[in-house]
């Protein structure tokens, strides 16, 4: 990165100017609150089998499904769309895998068959979104709302309204296992985030997605294959949601048809927005989305850790969202800028140059 070449101070300044900087600050603040409540909160111990254990590891594990859907959501939002169906796709994926594993033998083979089924079903649901948005030309909000409503019903039909449980050691390992002492889910989610980040930023793909989000017509005139890209993005978002569903169900090996993935689309959208991606489309930030997902997981864990009823968590989420949105809003930034300008003249000059 060129920022590193200019020295750590410049790199830090660049980080501060990033929109997800406030997300990182919020994570640090939450961890600090936990630390005040219990000075040993951040301690990470090495378990008997050489695996890391501790509250921070728990947070990373909880963040994994949110990171996956946030990355998918990030690309969808970049095109000016939104995907409300990810939570429902998660529960459908969970229902399909549990229904299959319920009667399948406890082998590695059935794990892979279950994963293949998940990919197929979630890609199909994503494809429906893709067709409705790119070919039919419906608004993303309403097309994915249809799949959101229908998806949860579909999951209930698949399991017959029951919360299906199954046993499969390999499948369970995906959610509960460790590699290099870290949870598999977190490593997988990070791998996906880094992979997607490199793919879209090292190629023209990211620019094309942003072009669609900025002005679909102009993008088409510039030769961007809007239809195919939108189609791909929604399918990709669906598949990532399917894997998030696997993560969410495999840890307890039970799919709860009314709770698995419930309202997780909102968490994903929040993560994306916290990361500095505008819902208006035209720009996105994968790193920011990952920061946002970790913030949401940290917030969830913190609220429970502080002994507040988990049903009250949304109120704290609301406070964090409002605070971050206000910090990112132009009106508040202007106030900050003026105050800084009043203090010293030189930094103000730099602000103008930066702007």
């Amino acid at each position, binding site marked *: 990165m060129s920022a590193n070449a200019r020295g750590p101070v410049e790199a830090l300044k660049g980080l501060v100017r990033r929109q997800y900087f406030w997300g990182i600050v919020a994570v640090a603040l939450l961890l600090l609150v936990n630390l005040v409540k219990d000075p040993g909160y951040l301690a990470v111990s090495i378990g008997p089998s050489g695996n890391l254990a501790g509250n921070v590891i728990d947070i990373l594990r909880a963040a994994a499904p949110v990171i996956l859907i946030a990355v998918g959501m990030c690309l969808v939002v970049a095109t000016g769309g939104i995907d409300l169906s990810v939570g429902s796709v998660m529960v459908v994926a969970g229902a399909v895998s549990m229904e299959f594993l319920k009667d399948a033998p406890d082998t590695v083979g059935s794990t892979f068959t279950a994963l293949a089924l998940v990919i197929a079903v979630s890609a199909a649901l994503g494809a429906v979104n893709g067709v409705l948005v790119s070919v039919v030309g419906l608004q993303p909000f309403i097309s994915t709302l249809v799949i959101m409503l229908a998806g949860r019903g579909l999951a209930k039909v698949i399991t017959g309204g029951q919360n299906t449980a199954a046993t499969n050691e390999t499948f369970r390992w995906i959610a509960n296992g460790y590699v290099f002492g870290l949870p598999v889910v977190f490593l997988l989610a990070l791998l996906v985030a880094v992979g997607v980040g490199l793919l879209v930023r090292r190629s023209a793909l990211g620019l094309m997605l942003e072009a669609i989000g900025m002005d679909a017509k102009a993008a088409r005139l510039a030769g961007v294959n809007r239809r195919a890209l939108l189609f791909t993005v929604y399918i990709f978002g669906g598949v990532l949601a399917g894997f998030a569903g696997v993560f969410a169900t495999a840890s307890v090996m039970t799919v709860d048809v009314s709770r698995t993935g419930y309202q997780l689309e909102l968490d994903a959208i929040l993560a994306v927005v916290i990361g500095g991606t505008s819902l208006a489309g035209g720009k996105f930030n994968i790193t920011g989305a990952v920061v946002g997902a970790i913030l949401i997981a940290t917030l969830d864990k913190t609220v429970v850790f502080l002994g507040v009823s988990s049903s009250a968590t949304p109120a704290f989420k609301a406070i964090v969202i409002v605070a971050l949105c206000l910090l990112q*809003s*132009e009106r508040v930034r202007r106030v900050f800028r003026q105050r800084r300008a009043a203090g010293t003249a030189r930094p103000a000059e730099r602000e103008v140059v930066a702007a």
Partner: protein
Amino acid sequence: MSTLTSPSAEAAPTGIRALAKRVTPQLDTLPTAAAVVIFVGMIVYGEAAYGRIVQFNTLSNLLINNAHLVILAVGLTFVIVTGGIDLSVGAVIAISSVAGVMLINAGWNPWLAMLLMVLIGTAFGTVSGILIQYFHVQPFIATLAMMFLGRGLASMLSTEPERVPDDSPLRSLGEQLKIYDGPKVNDIVLTPGVLIAAAVVAAAFFMLHRTRTGRTVYAIGGSEQSAALMGLPVAKTKMSVYIISGSLAGLAAVVYTARLGSAQNITGIGWELDAIAATVIGGTLLTGGAGFVLGSVVGALVLGLMNVLITRDGGIPPEATTIITGGILLVFVLLQRAVLARRRE
């Protein structure tokens, strides 16, 4: 629109052209008209397949059980016509009804508590409006934050169902008044809640379709920039649509709690989606600029009637309800899409 047709078409009004001319100016109303047609079709189908649908008591109950949804849908019509969205209405119902019932149980004057229930909605709407208008937070995110806040606060107040005392004036709003005493139980029954909903619909109809504020709402939905350049009070109007939507959600909480007699923190989960669906089915475009109050009423009744039919059928598993809701929603938006494509030609 009709003034743009060429003189030759005027001169030779052949059968098809005359018909096309008569239909063209009404393309805006086509989705709404389709909603009415489908509503009537559902009633006819229900009557033919299950019977006892076209009856005073069934239709009265349809109104009574959906009065709150009608109120919500009317509020959302204002917001959606400006091109915004309000996701907080379901959670506003939860916080407002839980807080109201707890205050009544704590010995507050019930009428004062009811007023406060509406004002809680007003407060939530005001905060959404301020975030959206003055801090440029996207409506989706701002109202999502209010949704989380409402739901979280309601859960902090209580996670148990809070019962309204049976003799409370709040219950009297849900009392069934027999208007017409038919044979057996086939009566026309209304509740004050239905009357409140009707009054809301009438007032909203007048405001959106007959006043300057209403015109401004449509203008903002058409193009906010143009509306501002024309000197229309954009900031004031945008604030007021969110305040209207929030207040109506508070009012819906009163009507719903009066009918049910209890309030809980999980009341109203997903109702914002029902209300959005009702509005869309009624012919309001999510992009803003087009829509009708009465269409949203029909949309809400379509959703309510669908639940009645599913219950009557008995063979449809309850799990499939949301699939059918999704399907109906899809049909309507596809229809709108077709209409829009036609108009652009």
